[in-house]
């Protein structure tokens, strides 16, 4: 990512059928206590102006074509930020009939249609709290270290044999 892209990330809010909790937290991040604008983040009204798409929700079938259109309309380099449990892993609706189950399925569909996404970020949370969004912005800008990593733990048996 170029230096100036990191300094000025314009985001378009792409609700793909979320419950609103993440969406109002996104708005909340712009308000005085958190103030995402100090990182150069600005909410824009058209995907044509956007650098990053804040995706919330598990992608419902009804919203899918519109989501693809919005992603296609975003000029490259484009960043897709999956926000909240629904978006990252499908959440509580990960296998219902009218959703496709989150960003991973969406990326597969995008790949089929040869629409490229340059960077993908994942922010789990239900809902994502504003600090988590700030942390993610920090991660994109390189201000903070990534803290989470996959863990494999082995259960310890007490007795042998």
């Amino acid at each position, binding site marked *: 990512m170029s230096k100036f892209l990191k300094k000025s990330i*314009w985001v378009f809010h792409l609700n793909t059928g979320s419950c609103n909790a993440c969406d109002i937290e996104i708005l909340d991040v712009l308000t005085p206590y958190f*103030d995402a604008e100090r990182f150069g983040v600005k909410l824009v009204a058209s995907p044509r102006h956007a650098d990053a798409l804040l995706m919330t929700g598990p992608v419902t079938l009804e919203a899918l074509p519109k989501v693809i259109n919005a992603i296609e309309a975003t*000029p490259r380099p484009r960043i897709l930020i999956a926000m909240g449990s629904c978006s990252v892993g499908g959440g509580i609706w990960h296998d219902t009939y009218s959703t496709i189950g989150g960003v991973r399925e969406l990326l597969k569909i995008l790949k089929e249609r040869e629409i490229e996404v340059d960077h993908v970020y994942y922010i789990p949370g239900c809902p994502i709290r504003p600090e988590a969004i700030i942390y993610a912005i920090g991660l994109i800008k390189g201000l903070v270290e990534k803290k989470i990593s996959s863990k494999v733990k082995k259960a310890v048996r007490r007795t042998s044999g």
Partner: protein
Amino acid sequence: MIEHIVVSIIVVLSIIFPTILDGVERKIKARIHSRIGPPILQSWYDIIKLFGKEQVMPRNSLHAVMLLILLTITQVFLIVYTSVSIIFQITQFDIVVIIALFIILQTIFISIPLTIPNTFSVLGGSREIALTLVNEALFIVIMGFFIYYTGITSFKQLTQLSPTVYLLILLLALFITGYVSSGRIPFDIAEAEPELASGLMIEFSGPILGVFLLTFHIRRFFVKFFPSILFLGLFIHTPISLIIAGFITTIILWIIYAVIAAILGRSRVDLAPITLLKIYLVLIALSIIGYYLKV
């Protein structure tokens, strides 16, 4: 020699500085919102970033792009011409030339969104027309009165002026047209975000959007700079001090306008032109009365 240096500095600054002032405005707004706000150079970061983005051409938008380039060139030319003509008189009719250029600029500005086949863009354009019909038309009328009262058509002649009440009233009206032309709340109905999704610039992206924003900032600078010079010309009679004072006044005005914009709400397309028309007509009438009473 010093004049050349000053004029070059002012020309360069009047292209670079508006975008920084936009950053200042965002910072002030943030303060009124009780938050920290972006760095002062943020608007420049935005524009530089936009130049690095992919250019997605909107459908059937060749006209729009050409008009935009024309707009940018004219705008830059206008600001350079204004700065230079304050110090070196270019023609006898510098002020008239500037008015004419500004009107051409406004015409290009309102025709850009109309050439883009997007509902919001067209709506934004037609709103801009409604506003222009009152604001820029009255700008010409006010400047007409100014020239009629004083008989001056170039900045060089400003030295002959002395402050009178009717001129000050006229200049107040001119400052208001400047405020409206700068597209601030409550008169940003053309790009009203919640209604029109950024209205006239909805389809632009990447470098084109960057150019548009840059031009827009210069335009905001110009509409404050020009009335400031006319106003200060009543008091300051040396060109170099006038241009420097004009520059500083513009910055102060920018800050005042930013505060005003932050504490008001957005007007509506059927309310704004009528409200403005009332204000302008009252101010012009007052100045006419003042002119005949010689105050």
